[in-house]
């Protein structure tokens, strides 16, 4: 217990003192995951919308596929991407393995099905009259889509936060595709895994605190905006 207390104290000290190595790891984590979520969000929302509002052959199969991909472990996604990006793989010539780009690719693959599945549920739960009202009031399909997105914005934001939470905290794909290289591909979860395996808990605890604070801030923001949407009027 005393050991844990002492490690936590050291962790706080590292965070407050602005430890360069620690903050570099945090920076890499946020840069990679933010890039991944920004790349994934637009195609994911459009896919979710098409799956909810369009009728075409194979639609149900696609929905089942995305729901299945939702539960695939990060390490399996990492393995699949590794096979594609390794020297012998079809994309080996691009020399992307053990780079931040490879980590971004892995995280996009990880969060895309999640954003689609959650976005689809959100659009499915939306009142279909929103789309019809927009169209009957002269909105183009694109404008009507933006209108429906505005109507279900809290569900979409929740999907976005859940997706971001998943990729910033995953260790399997980042470890396999990034290689955990200090100052280049070492992010929060891979650093925690490494430091813990070395018995150096302080840095691991400090990085864990950052993840906890981030989760708290994101969830509080969501609740704040949801509350604002209901109160105003």
């Amino acid at each position: 217990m005393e050991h844990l207390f002492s490690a936590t104290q050291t962790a706080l000290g590292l965070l407050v003192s602005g430890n360069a190595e620690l903050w570099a790891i945090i920076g890499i984590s946020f840069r990679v995951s933010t890039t991944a979520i920004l790349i994934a969000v637009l195609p994911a929302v459009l896919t979710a919308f098409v799956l909810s509002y369009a009728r075409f052959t194979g639609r149900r199969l696609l929905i089942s596929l995305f729901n299945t991909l939702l539960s695939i472990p990060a390490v399996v996604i990492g393995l699949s991407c590794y096979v594609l990006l390794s020297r012998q793989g079809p994309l080996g010539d691009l020399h992307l393995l053990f780079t931040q780009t490879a980590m971004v690719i892995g995280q996009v693959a990880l969060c895309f099905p999640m954003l689609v599945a959650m976005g689809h549920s959100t659009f499915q739960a939306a009142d279909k009259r929103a789309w019809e009202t927009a169209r009957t009031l002269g909105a183009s399909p694109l404008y009507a889509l933006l209108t429906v997105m505005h109507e279900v914005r809290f569900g979409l934001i929740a999907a976005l936060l859940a997706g971001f939470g998943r990729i910033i905290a995953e260790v399997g794909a980042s470890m396999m595709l990034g290689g955990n290289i200090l100052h280049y591909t070492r992010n929060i979860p891979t650093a925690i895994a490494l430091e813990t395996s070395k018995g150096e808990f302080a840095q691991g605890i400090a990085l864990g605190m950052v993840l906890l604070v981030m989760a708290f801030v994101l969830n509080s923001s969501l609740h704040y905006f949801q509350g604002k949407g209901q109160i105003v009027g």
Partner: protein
Amino acid sequence: MQPLSLHDIHKTFGARRVLQGATLELNTGTCCLLTGANGAGKSTLLRICAGLEKPEAGYVDLGAGRIRWKRARRDLQRQSVYLHQQPYMFDSSVRQNLAYALHRHTDKATHQTRIDMALDWAGLTPIAHTWAKQLSGGERQRVALARAWLRSPNIMLLDEPTNNLDEEAKQRTLALLMSLKAQGIGLLIASHENNYFHRLADETLELANGQLTPRTATPHSIGNIVKLTSIRQATL
């Protein structure tokens, strides 16, 4: 001008044949009341008229002869506005809901004036800044009518506009509908409350077994203010 003409419309849902050769013509400044039992297909017919539902057979003539559904749908959506039985309010204020109907208008300078006029016309000025989702059923109906009015349609398609409203709200809605008709907008109203619309409707059509049949004409149709051609039964 004849803004709406549907011929030999067929529509099925699963094994249920909802429309079986319905033909309808509606002129501007006329009002047609569509009656029928629950589930008779009144809403489906309105939704086809609005371009929201595709018929399996039949065609739409909007003055340029028989056209493909894709173009017909675009034209129908351009010149009509469909109002749901329970109108949908966007998650914004009453004023912003009305502004939505003007989002394609290029003349932004007149937006506020037009919105003010619509608010005044529908008696919504006191609640212009109220959140639309918090309104009562009657107020929502008036917002929906004002919003539709701002779109300047040739025709309005109303699905049970007085359903679940109290007496006062019904009378206010009716007054607005009369005003719309007087402005030359064609009205197609699906309702089972015939009594409320007898002063407004020029023709009453009954939808039963997928087919439209004219009921007794109201005095208006004799005056020929409105010309709503009755219904031709298409051969199956």
